[in-house]
């Protein structure tokens, strides 16, 4: 295969034809489509897709940035593990600036907390194996895309007897959140553009319940500009037909059934649980906690440091942004008290946060 195939999925002439097709199908009644995934949000903002479709399709951003929906109580627990239990914290880089109740990992790191940025959860296992006198806690944040990698690290640690490794789990599952959003009358979603790599793991069939029970069409789409435009076009056609099917644009990677081996590993290491989403609240069955057979690798249980969830109200309207109820400029803090250099809310922290994408690429 040619690596240049990436360029083929960015061809401007085809993009123009797809935009024309979407506009023709949409007519003069704009449809409301939610892109669930933060990686889609960034791609849509970077490519200027929103203004291209203005008047035909209103793209609403969803809660699909794991960093943004991680509650502040999680950051507090991570900091407590480092400061009070002396653990070495290993994290994906984009978690460092997320505000906890009163501090962030970045600020604590500046004051001496040992926080290491890793690329893979397996790097954290290697870190633990190489520092047997330290407890290493991996900050396991992510959706279904990342869950198998975290599960793989836990199983690897168990197989290799790396007893000083554990995970503070904050793993969430997307279809349950979509179900909650679909049922919210204030959001009025007519179609879901479903995540590319979450779907590679769980399979496009995982959206069947949302499509059939809520009568909302779902299309899995890749992250390249033409993938996104074709996905939107497929949704607009379904909406105009009155259909509510699950379709898959990203067939080169995602299948109907998904990656069974990854699903089995996740089912072995994790157990579904209710969990709190920052700005949204507790969504039943939308979290993954570490299963009892691997409890020695569960940092919450190992150290007795629980992740607390509170839904305290502030002027920050990240919750409404995450639910697609408002666009970032409608938040009183956006671009004023909350900017990427000094974020107030989590949607401005992550590069995949809706507010950060709006701030960087413009609101229109």
């Amino acid at each position, binding site marked *: 295969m040619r690596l240049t195939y990436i360029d083929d999925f960015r061809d401007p002439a085809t993009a123009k034809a797809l935009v024309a097709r979407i506009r023709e199908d949409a007519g003069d009644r704009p449809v409301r489509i939610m892109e669930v995934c933060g990686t889609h949000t960034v791609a849509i903002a970077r490519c200027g897709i929103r203004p291209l479709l203005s008047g035909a399709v209103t793209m609403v951003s969803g809660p699909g940035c794991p960093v943004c929906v991680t509650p502040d109580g999680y950051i507090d627990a991570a900091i407590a593990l480092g400061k009070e239990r002396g653990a070495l914290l290993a994290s994906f880089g984009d978690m460092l600036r997320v505000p906890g109740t009163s501090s962030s990992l970045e600020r604590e790191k500046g004051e001496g907390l040992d926080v290491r940025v890793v690329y893979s959860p397996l790097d954290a296992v290697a870190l633990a194996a190489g520092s047997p006198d330290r407890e290493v806690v991996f900050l396991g944040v*992510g959706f279904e895309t990342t869950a198998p990698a975290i599960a793989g690290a836990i199983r*690897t640690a168990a197989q290799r007897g790396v007893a000083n490794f554990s995970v503070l789990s904050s793993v969430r599952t997307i279809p349950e959140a979509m179900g909650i959003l679909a049922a919210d009358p204030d959001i009025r979603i007519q179609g879901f553009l479903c995540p590319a790599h979450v779907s590679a793991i769980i399979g496009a069939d995982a959206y069947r319940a949302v499509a059939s029970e809520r009568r909302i069409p779902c299309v899995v789409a890749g992250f390249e500009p033409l993938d996104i435009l074709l996905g939107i076009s497929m949704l607009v056609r379904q909406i105009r037909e009155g259909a509510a099917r699950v379709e898959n644009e990203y067939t080169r*990677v995602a299948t109907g059934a998904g990656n069974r*081996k990854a699903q089995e590993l996740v089912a072995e290491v994790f157990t579904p649980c209710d969990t709190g989403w920052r700005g949204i609240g507790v969504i039943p069955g939308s979290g993954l906690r570490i299963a009892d057979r691997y409890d020695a690798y569960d940092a919450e249980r190992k150290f007795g440091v629980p992740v607390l969830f509170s839904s305290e109200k502030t002027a920050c309207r990240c919750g409404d942004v995450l639910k697609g109820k408002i666009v970032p400029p409608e938040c009183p803090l956006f671009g004023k008290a909350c900017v990427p250099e000094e974020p107030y809310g989590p949607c401005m922290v*992550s590069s995949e946060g809706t507010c950060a994408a709006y701030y960087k690429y413009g609101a229109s």
Partner: protein
Amino acid sequence: MCLGVPAKVMERSGDAAVVELGGVRREISLMLLDDVSVGEWVIVHAGFAIERLSEGAALQTLELFREIADAPDVH
């Protein structure tokens, strides 16, 4: 955060593989996939190959794009 990068498998030894990502080689895990061969393309996320990249399906999608771009009623 769910970004995945297409990469070509250059070497493998058990569940460990070396892939090439845009000219850079790095070690990843093949724990999540069965029977991956050297020369195959995979999507890499957080140090793991999470799925194969199907050339046949990619070409089908590209063919669909060509049909849309060439459609006579598009102006």
